[in-house]
């Protein structure tokens, strides 16, 4: 049975894909980003105990509970991103601290490994329109009652499709293994008979033979492209049927009530963007959204709610371990929101996480009145983002209209009532509510008061100072370098002037750099990693389990045993726990 957690008790987390600014070396050569990832991970290993991830994606988990992944988007063709994932947290402040610690860890590791030649950018869109960036995860009720029953029946009915897809994927894997054997034998047989064996190696492996260790994990470019197409074709029937189930059953109540909030949220959480036509937009990623739900990039879809992780569980995780399929039957699942921007301003990031969390808490508690329904949500989203004056009126179902600020205020007031009606809301919730209200007031009265607090306001301030005569390239560089995680990055330069408002104490970030958050599965994961990493026993980790040892002596630690979170009986313990996280 699905449970209803209180305020700031569900598990939450952030995933951030960092872009790379690379000078001096050809960054887009085959496997280039992968080599950067490997060197970056080597640096992380020197700072923190780490273990390899047991996952389809290559990556590591570290002792602070989080993970670092290589997001393999066509690496053989020059693509690929560094992705950091925070550990599971509970409160917005906790999550903000671990996100900032992750930014600090990865940027300092990049500086240590590459000097000024490689810097990370925490943004969402490059100058050529490629999209990546942030994803938010909130543990939430997938469905309840008859809807949940319908979902479970659907999972049983599609299982034959799932098994057929697994068999096809095993067949494909066998073909790939066969190819690698064939390629190796071909090279070893012919290398001594041809004048330039390096050319043969590049065709067969995508790199020279003695560089295989650092080669792209997906093989040569032609093989990578072929596998990408074949995998999509093989999984398409399952993907289509499974997506139909998700649209019908997944997070229906939350999606219905949360969507207007998310559509209007860029006025607070948008990072700002200089568009191709030179106009300034409130958000970086939002204008690229082309559907409300989708798998997220699987077929060039850019959804607000991403279901990609569910599909990965079916065709990837459960392919390797069929027991993973059972995870899909649970009533509590991960709601993934792909709409948000990667923030540099602490206040903006705190509000993005915190207000969304509070609204979801209110929805699940049944304390959120049915909000206004937006007539065309995606069109409204684009119009809101294209209007920095914040005067655009959103057409609502029923013929009325409202501004994004008015829509945000309706959620603010609903959350205020929710907190008043709650038995024992945490103090942080009241603090967050005040900050939310003050921010909306400032947006209405004088947005310039929010320079240093909201990213889009701060970025617009920088662009204004550059002057209207600045070229598009110059303005776009301001847009991008604002997000660079280095002392040369423009936001970091502004921080050094004292103009940027902070939410966290530096000691909280320092603490989060080395320790997992308390009261979550990450607490256990991080402590096991610190104890076993580098020891004699093999240890692997994923988000759900720790695997220690091999063969008959193997042990599996199930992190799900620590859910659901129950608030300790005494307030004193709660405060103590919170103080630990806040340093």
């Amino acid at each position, binding site marked *: 049975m699905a449970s209803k957690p209180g305020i700031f008790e569900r598990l939450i987390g952030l995933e951030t894909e960092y872009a790379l600014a690379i000078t001096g070396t050809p960054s887009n050569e085959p496997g280039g980003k992968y080599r950067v990832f490997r060197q970056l991970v080597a640096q992380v290993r020197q700072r923190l105990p780490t273990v390899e991830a047991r996952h389809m994606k290559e990556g590591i988990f570290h002792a602070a509970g989080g993970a670092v992944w290589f997001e393999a988007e066509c690496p053989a063709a020059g693509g690929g991103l560094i992705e950091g994932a925070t550990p599971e947290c509970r409160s917005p402040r906790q999550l903000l601290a671990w996100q900032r610690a992750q930014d600090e860890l990865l940027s300092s590791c990049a500086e240590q490994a590459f000097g000024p030649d490689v810097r990370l950018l925490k943004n969402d869109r*490059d100058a050529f329109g490629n999209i990546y960036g942030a994803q938010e995860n909130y543990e939430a009720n997938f469905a309840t009652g008859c809807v949940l029953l319908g979902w479970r029946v659907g999972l049983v009915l599609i299982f034959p499709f799932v098994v057929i897809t697994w068999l096809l994927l095993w067949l494909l894997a066998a073909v790939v293994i066969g190819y690698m054997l064939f390629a190796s034998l071909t090279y070893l047989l012919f290398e001594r008979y041809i004048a330039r064996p390096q050319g043969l190696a590049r065709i067969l492996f995508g790199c020279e033979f003695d560089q295989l260790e650092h080669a792209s994990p997906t093989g040569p470019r032609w093989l990578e492209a072929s596998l990408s197409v074949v995998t999509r074709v093989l999984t398409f029937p399952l993907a289509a049927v499974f997506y139909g189930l998700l649209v019908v059953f997944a997070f229906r109540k939350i999606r219905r009530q949360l969507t207007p909030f998310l559509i209007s949220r860029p006025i607070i959480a948008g990072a700002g963007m200089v568009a191709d036509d030179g106009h300034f937009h409130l958000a970086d990623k939002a204008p690229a959204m082309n559907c409300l739900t989708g798998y997220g990039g699987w077929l060039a879809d850019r959804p607000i709610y991403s279901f990609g992780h569910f599909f990965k569980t079916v065709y990837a995780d459960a392919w390797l371990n069929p027991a993973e399929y059972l995870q899909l039957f649970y009533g509590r699942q991960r709601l993934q929101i792909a709409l948000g921007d990667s923030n540099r301003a602490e206040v903006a990031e705190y509000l993005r996480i915190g207000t969304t969390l509070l609204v979801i808490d209110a929805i699940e508690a049944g304390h959120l009145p049915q909000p206004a329904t937006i007539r065309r949500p995606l069109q409204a989203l684009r119009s809101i983002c294209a209007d920095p004056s914040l005067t655009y009126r959103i057409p609502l179902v029923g013929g009325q209209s409202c501004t994004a600020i008015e829509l945000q205020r309706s959620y603010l007031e609903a959350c205020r009532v929710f907190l008043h009606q709650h038995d024992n809301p945490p103090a942080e919730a009241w603090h967050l509510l005040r900050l939310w209200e003050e921010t909306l007031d400032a947006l209405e009265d004088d947005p310039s008061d929010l320079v240093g607090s909201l990213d889009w306001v701060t970025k617009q301030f920088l662009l204004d100072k550059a002057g209207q005569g*600045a070229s598009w390239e110059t303005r*776009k560089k301001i847009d991008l370098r604002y997000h660079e995680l280095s002392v*040369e990055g423009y936001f970091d*330069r502004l921080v050094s002037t004292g103009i940027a408002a902070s939410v966290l104490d530096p*000691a909280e970030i320092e*603490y989060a750099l080395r320790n997992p958050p*308390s009261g979550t599965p990450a607490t256990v994961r991080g402590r096991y990693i610190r104890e076993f990493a580098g020891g004699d026993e093999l240890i692997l980790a994923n988000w759900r389990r720790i695997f220690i040892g091999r063969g008959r002596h193997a042990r599996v630690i199930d992190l799900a045993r620590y859910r659901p979170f129950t608030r300790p009986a005494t307030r004193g313990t709660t405060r103590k726990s919170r103080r630990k996280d806040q340093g």
Partner: protein
Amino acid sequence: MIRSDVMQMDNMTAVEVASVDAVTIAPVRALHEMLAQIAVDASANAAEYLNETKVPYGGE
């Protein structure tokens, strides 16, 4: 029943807490000077920077 080899939340001991005093606070620099520096930097090699930060194929 939680396995005995798994650390339980209730049993966690006090954690090391970083001291605020240990953090070096950078000296505050003048805003107008910083804005001028940013304007100069932004106009230098801007197109090159856009190429350096290209993310082919994007992400999720």
